[in-house]
């Protein structure tokens, strides 16, 4: 091939893109695949729905059984008792503090005399 016969740079002798478009055509799936897939999908969604329902049932059952189990009562009772003790201690401290302020006793009298002298 002489220089004159050669295609100019950038010009392709074979139109590859056209050939690819002809060769690689989309392929329709067989009808059997549509029905096969419809069946599989129906089975899968049904199975998922069943699992969802079972899961919800299990959750409710487990919650109820945990409420009925006496072993699970200990924690709330201990928490309530601890809260009661703490509240009582605070009340006692507050009462003592107020009684000190209103009734100074011998210590208060001695302090008063000391300040006057």
């Amino acid at each position, binding site marked *: 091939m002489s220089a004159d016969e050669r295609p100019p740079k950038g010009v392709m002798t074979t139109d590859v893109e056209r050939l690819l478009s002809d*060769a*690689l055509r989309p392929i*329709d*799936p067989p009808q059997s695949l549509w029905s096969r*897939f419809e069946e599989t999908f129906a089975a*899968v969604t049904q199975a998922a729905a069943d699992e969802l329902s079972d899961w919800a049932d299990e959750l409710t059952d487990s919650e109820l059984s945990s409420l009925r189990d006496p072993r699970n009562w200990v924690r709330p009772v201990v928490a309530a008792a601890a809260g009661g003790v703490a509240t009582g201690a605070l009340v006692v401290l507050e009462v003592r503090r107020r009684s000190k302020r209103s009734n100074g006793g011998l210590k208060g009298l001695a302090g008063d005399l000391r300040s006057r002298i």
Partner: protein
Amino acid sequence: MNGEIETAAQTSADPAAKAELDKAFSDLYRTHLRDVYSYSYYRVGNHHDAEDLTEQAFLQAYRHFERARRESDGRPLRPWLIRIAHNLASNHHRDRSRRPQTPLENADPIAARHGTEAVAEGREELRAVIENLGHLPDDRREALIMRFALGMDNREIARALGRTDGATKVLIHRAIKQLQEEMDS
């Protein structure tokens, strides 16, 4: 099968939400079954394996559909589906390469992989382009299948292959150039 199904629908215990999700998925596969099947067929070269691969791809898609929809932010889900099919096809080829090859597969690997007889219909030019397509590196061949068999644009192909738009543009350009050179040689 039940144990394997881990749909996002199960996480939302709302039956109405699940029904809506299933309806959306049904629309998705009706719209894209042909695309996934075509891609699978051009990757594995026979209808039987292409059907299996397509079914597996959609089952896998169903498991992660809610999350994919959420994360796609309204963008088309076709590249995601093709990416699933792409990964499954790669696994398929890897598994087959571990098994002993039959003489039939050795006899005409290009025809077996791409169904040359059916597609080219005896036309020498088309046969040649399919044969040369089989000589391209995997990523170039796959990009051309996406472009020409599925009509995907650069952005879609980029998302399906997990590349940037720029890298995909270069990939397709080089694939066509290499194919052109092989056809002209």
